[in-house]
């Protein structure tokens, strides 16, 4: 039993320790990133996440406590660079002995190979949840992150993911994926509609109801807009849709109006239009007005993707006789060919830190996902011998790639892997067929 005096003491301690440790630690390693998640030879960091300490009693709280712990473990292992050590081998039980630094014997954790330890405390008052979450470096015996969250019980997931963003920030220098979403196409009763889900496949929901074929959803940088193409009115038109308010535009020029890609941080996008009789890439305003033509070559030019700085566009062109990926510098207008290996390379996706491009290649009849450096260096095959693999899209931290694969009984579904191709796993279970995933940026 913990009386209010003890709680007060604990709270006092947390506030003090948060200030002391966080501040000193922050100043100490302001620009030190512990982990480079883009390193191809990355080793997973072993982390222990023991049972949370309950500051009040009851079955309800116990459920919330287990739920919070599971949310935390699932989210952090989703990143691909953290490995959660099995609870059964833990030598200590902070839910009884205490979750603050003074209560922890770090030898208990280094002894089982944990380099990081996350302790949690939870309290429930009515429908309000309070969470105390800390991450320790077990070898340095240091508090890396310490946070207190208060919110509704229904917001447990949000609170846990806020903390995960802090953990990611501390470890990688980036907020991670926890506040991002994935848009995709799912077949509903034979029709293709646009859907959205959370970063981990949670809560998929349908956002278009055209009862037609809708394809290629693309998030704006601020995640407020989605552009996609649809045959809803017969022709293949481009829809620019605001997700919060009922407003938007349709670009319905003669021919195709397809493959939108938003310019980073801008209310403008690139898309493939064929009103001249030839599919070319254009820059459009967010209201669908043409700013300028980007490509000018007879034959197919499609699937534009901006570099993260917005200064270049990668796209697919058949100008060399086979579909290949090219890069156009929008400032100098210089165009160069990126892919040379194989006779079919399409669907470019620019990594968030700008150094690599993921794409789809067909070799010996197999459709797989590859990445290549933007100078054409260090090509890598990420999928192999597991169905057709298409539509790569990078997570906002660059650590993961979502894609569609027919590996499970020939039905296209969404999968996630690390940027090096490891840890390939299904993103979500949903009826029908899922394709065309597009990962949003992180917006707080």
């Amino acid at each position: 039993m913990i009386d209010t005096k003890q709680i007060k003491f604990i709270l006092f301690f947390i506030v003090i320790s948060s200030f002391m440790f966080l501040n000193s630690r922050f100043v100490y390693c302001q620009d030190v990133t512990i982990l480079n998640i883009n390193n191809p030879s990355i080793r997973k960091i072993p982390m222990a996440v023991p049972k949370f300490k309950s500051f009040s009693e009851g079955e309800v709280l116990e459920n919330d406590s287990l739920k919070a712990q599971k949310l935390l473990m699932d989210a952090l292992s989703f990143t691909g660079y953290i490995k959660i050590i099995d609870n059964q081998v833990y030598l200590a039980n902070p839910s009884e002995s205490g979750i603050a630094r003074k209560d922890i014997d770090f030898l208990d954790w280094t002894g089982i190979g944990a380099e990081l330890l996350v302790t949690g405390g939870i309290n429930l008052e009515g429908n309000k949840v309070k969470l105390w979450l800390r991450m320790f470096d077990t070898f340095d015996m240091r508090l890396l992150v310490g946070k207190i969250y208060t919110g509704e019980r229904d917001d447990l997931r949000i609170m846990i993911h806020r903390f995960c963003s802090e953990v990611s920030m501390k470890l990688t220098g980036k907020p991670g994926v926890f506040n991002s979403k994935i848009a995709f196409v799912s077949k509903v009763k034979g029709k293709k509609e646009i859907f959205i889900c959370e970063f981990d496949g949670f809560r998929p929901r349908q956002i278009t109801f055209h009862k037609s074929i809708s394809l290629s959803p693309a998030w704006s940088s601020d995640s407020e807009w989605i552009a996609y193409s649809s045959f809803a009115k017969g022709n293949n038109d481009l829809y620019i849709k605001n997700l919060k308010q009922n407003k938007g535009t349709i670009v319905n020029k003669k021919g195709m109006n397809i493959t939108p890609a938003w310019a980073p941080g801008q209310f403008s996008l690139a898309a493939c239009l064929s009103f001249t009789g030839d599919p070319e890439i254009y820059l459009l305003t967010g209201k669908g007005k043409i700013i300028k033509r980007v490509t000018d070559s007879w034959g197919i030019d499609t699937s534009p993707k901006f570099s993260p700085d917005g200064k270049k566009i990668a796209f697919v062109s058949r100008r060399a006789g086979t579909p290949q990926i090219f890069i156009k510098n929008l400032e100098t207008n210089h165009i160069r060919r990126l892919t040379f290996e194989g006779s079919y390379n399409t669907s470019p996706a620019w990594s968030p830190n700008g150094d690599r491009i993921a794409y789809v290649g067909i070799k010996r009849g197999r459709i797989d996902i590859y990445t290549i450096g933007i100078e054409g260096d260090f090509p890598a095959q990420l999928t192999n011998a597991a169905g057709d693999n298409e539509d790569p899209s990078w997570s906002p931290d660059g650590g993961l790639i979502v894609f569609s694969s027919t590996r499970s009984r020939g039905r296209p579904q969404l999968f996630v892997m690390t940027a090096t191709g490891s840890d390939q796993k299904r993103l979500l279970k949903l009826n029908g067929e899922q394709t065309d995933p597009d990962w949003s940026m992180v917006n707080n």
Partner: protein
Amino acid sequence: MKKRVFANLLMVLLVAGLFLTVSCAQKKVSVDPTTESGQTTSEQGTASADTNPLKPVATGDADVDFINLDIYFDFDSSELTAEAQTLLQSKAAYMKEKGNVNITIEGHCDERGTTEYNLALGERRAKSAQDFLVDLGIAGSRVNIISYGEEKPADAGHNADAWERNRRGHFMFK
């Protein structure tokens, strides 16, 4: 003893199951409706040299054939083959005869390759056919084009025959 009887029974069931699955698989192929149209035409003695048994063949009815007969393309190609050109010539002749008929050419692709690229490829295919008809004297305003990429396969199969049949230009009255 009882165990052995059970094992035998299980064996019988398994073998029976095996036969059932095989017969099911065979059924699927023979029930395809397009094979029937193939049979009708071979009776009329207009058997096609094409080896793909699932492709529709001419019936002799000009209106039906105009819609039923697709032109086919090689993988990742929008070039008109010799057969496609012959077929387009007969379609042009039909359109000249029926001056009030306007059409839409749908460009389609097989499921291999990527969705977005295939939309563009399908349009190139429809455009090739449109250009050919215009070269033969058909007014461009009578020929509309649209690409469905790999979204509307004629054959839902995942094999070479299905792919061959899906890489097509399809003709519709407008």
